[in-house]
């Protein structure tokens, strides 16, 4: 790719005279006109509710009030530097990184395990699939409310069983050392079933004849997994990882319901930090600046994953 591009560019600029370029442009536009027309309704709504809002955030991030009664004034990048200097924000970023890694890996591992175990369809596996998929159907807010009771210190369901084994009962959501883990447990429980669906679909695409051939050649279950199934599942892995990463940034319902980012900011995630700045501090400038930073990271992540996907498709 990198070799082909520079070679193609000079041809395009030097060879064709201007009018011809214009002509080609108009004719290509004419050809794609129906496509643009078809896109128009979605573009209108995207512009209204997504790009418009993003533009507004961009503007809001550049303004600030110095004192409560002062009018808002242009401050440039001051809001962004204020966010980056805020220990609560850096804390939230660190928490979010831990949260992203420690929820993505276990939930994907579990999802793959479930999918491998339940890939053949019969009555038992269908029932088990449904059971594993059940958490996906429960809204995160409702699930969080349920887990509040499970995690209740001393009298909750978890302590009721663990209490017989441990001398000192953990205060699941009230101890800054454990609270984030508790939040992560819910996320894994909630998402593993969802990712399992993608792996089940991915497993359908593993060619039957290759598997049979490997079987005849005497490849054991481990070698078949290592050398056939996992490589075939690579696009699924990529896709699920992107989804899981996005979830780790955009899903904070359980933080909202269960801990409000506490105790002592130990479960504060980036999105919840933005909420706090906007709502509790009533600081729209700082909230917008933090939103911009988050958006930039998310867009980078998405671009990276698209490139990787495109590369793969190009290579295949």
């Amino acid at each position: 790719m990198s070799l082909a591009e520079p070679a193609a560019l000079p041809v395009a600029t030097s060879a064709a005279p201007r009018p011809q370029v214009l002509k080609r442009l108009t004719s290509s536009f004419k050809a794609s006109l129906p496509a643009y027309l078809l896109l128009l309704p979605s573009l209108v709504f995207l512009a209204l509710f997504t790009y418009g809002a993003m533009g507004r955030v961009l503007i809001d991030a550049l303004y600030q009030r110095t004192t409560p009664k002062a009018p808002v004034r242009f401050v440039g990048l001051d809001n962004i530097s204020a966010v980056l200097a805020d220990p609560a924000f850096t804390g939230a970023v660190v928490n979010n990184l831990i949260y992203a890694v420690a929820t993505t890996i276990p939930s994907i591992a579990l999802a793959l395990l479930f999918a491998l175990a339940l890939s053949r369809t019969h009555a038992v596996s269908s029932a088990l699939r449904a059971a594993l998929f059940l958490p996906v159907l429960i809204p995160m807010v409702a699930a969080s409310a349920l887990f509040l009771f499970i995690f209740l210190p001393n009298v909750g369901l978890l302590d009721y069983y663990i209490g017989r084994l441990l001398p000192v009962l953990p205060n699941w959501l009230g101890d800054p050392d454990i609270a984030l883990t508790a939040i992560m447990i819910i996320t894994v429980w909630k998402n593993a079933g969802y990712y399992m669906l993608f792996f089940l679909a991915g497993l359908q695409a593993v060619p039957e004849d290759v598997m049979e051939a490997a079987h005849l050649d005497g490849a054991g279950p481990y070698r078949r997994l290592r050398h056939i199934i996992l490589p075939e599942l690579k696009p699924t892995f990529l896709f699920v990882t992107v989804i899981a990463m996005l979830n780790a940034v955009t899903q904070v319902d359980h933080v909202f319901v269960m801990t409000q980012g506490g105790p002592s900011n130990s479960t504060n995630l980036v999105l919840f930090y933005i909420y706090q700045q906007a709502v509790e501090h009533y600081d729209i400038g700082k909230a917008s600046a933090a939103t911009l930073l988050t958006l930039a990271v998310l867009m980078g992540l998405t671009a990276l994953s698209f490139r990787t996907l495109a590369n793969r498709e190009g290579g295949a």
Partner: protein
Amino acid sequence: MLFSRRLMLSLAIAGTMAGSLAVPAKAEGPTEIDLFFPVPVDGKLARDMGTLIKEFNETHRDVKATAVYTGSYDDTLIKTRAAIKAGKPPAAVIMSANFLLDMQIENELTNLDSLIAADGSTKEKFLGQFFPALHGNAVINRSVYGVPFHNSTPLLYINADKAKEAGLDPSKPPQTWAELTDWAKKLTKRDGDKVTQWGIAIPCAYDYCGWMMETLTMSNGGRYYNEEFGGEVYYDTPSMLGALTWWNDLVYKHKVHAPGATPGPAVSTSFISGNAAMMMLSTGSLTYVRDNAKFAYKVAFIPRNVRNAVPIGGASLIVPAGLEADKQKAAWTLIKWMTSPEKSGWWSRATGYFAPNMAAYKTPEMVDFLGKNPDAKTAVDQLDVAKPWFATYKTVPVRKTLEDEVMLVLNGKKQPKEALAAAQKAADETLKPYNAETSLKLP
């Protein structure tokens, strides 16, 4: 093509629908107003509010009020602010009493003085209907900005059966911190290293934690914040140090209070299940305890170390800024009706909050109710020593700086002294812009 045709069709339908909705609103008729209301405790409140507003609309033909449920106290603040920003403020809101100052600083409240004067009344006469402890959160710069609607104070709840078991007399509840510590020690049951029953539970989650710290600090002679000026809090003071040290001692020295931060619902569940023999919690939980406790319980004043004093909690009715005159007038009619002795008392009996209007306790229904439920009277009696709820510039973040540090102390990660110094520093930083505009803006 099909797609856009369908879109056109739906746009056309939406247009006609919007048109048909807009027409009756413009026609002559009763003034239509919205009332935003939160449900901070149980779900039953929403139904009671429906009953109340229905009765109002039946008795007031010129006003049509609609009650709009807006979530928790914090959510209600968000939605009110969003509505004000969008230029469509609700006519009245039941707002957490300690958010009023912050809203007034942000120019989001209507000064009610002129509405009171238009009725031919005076500020003193109008406020005189309500318990004096509630005035502090309703009056800012000598102007009325809120009308108390439902209020609470913290109480000490005691499991009377467990107290008797431990040889304590529940009819003589602990009155000082020393007595309470002694009770808690006697009420804690251990099985080796493991505690099977805690002597006392005090909630600590965002919002509740700050309120409990104010409770303990006040009973230790302190103030928590400057009642006259929104730019100061008194975290790094002996009275608060004593309060937090005692709480810390209950956990780590006497080992009669579970370590860690425990939210309010976990504390009440712990008390109901018999896992905690005493708890400090709002009067707002009294109905819940009355309905669920399978044992005899007793409520008492919060014990003192230096003096008996507690903060109030609860909510006031406010009128947001930027309303048309006719809606303002209609809102004022609704507010006066909702805070009248009869309605105030009815709401109190339905919810468990106390009625802010003193005359409510003279109505026959209330006298009858208190005769049947004498525990509801304790909260009212405690009002004699109650003081305003902390309210500063940016109340929530200023409170959070303290709560985060208290949570570290309760988890054994920090000592009270250094925690309070850190909280003070962070709070001062948050209050800085306001001080720059007020106390530090010099000629």
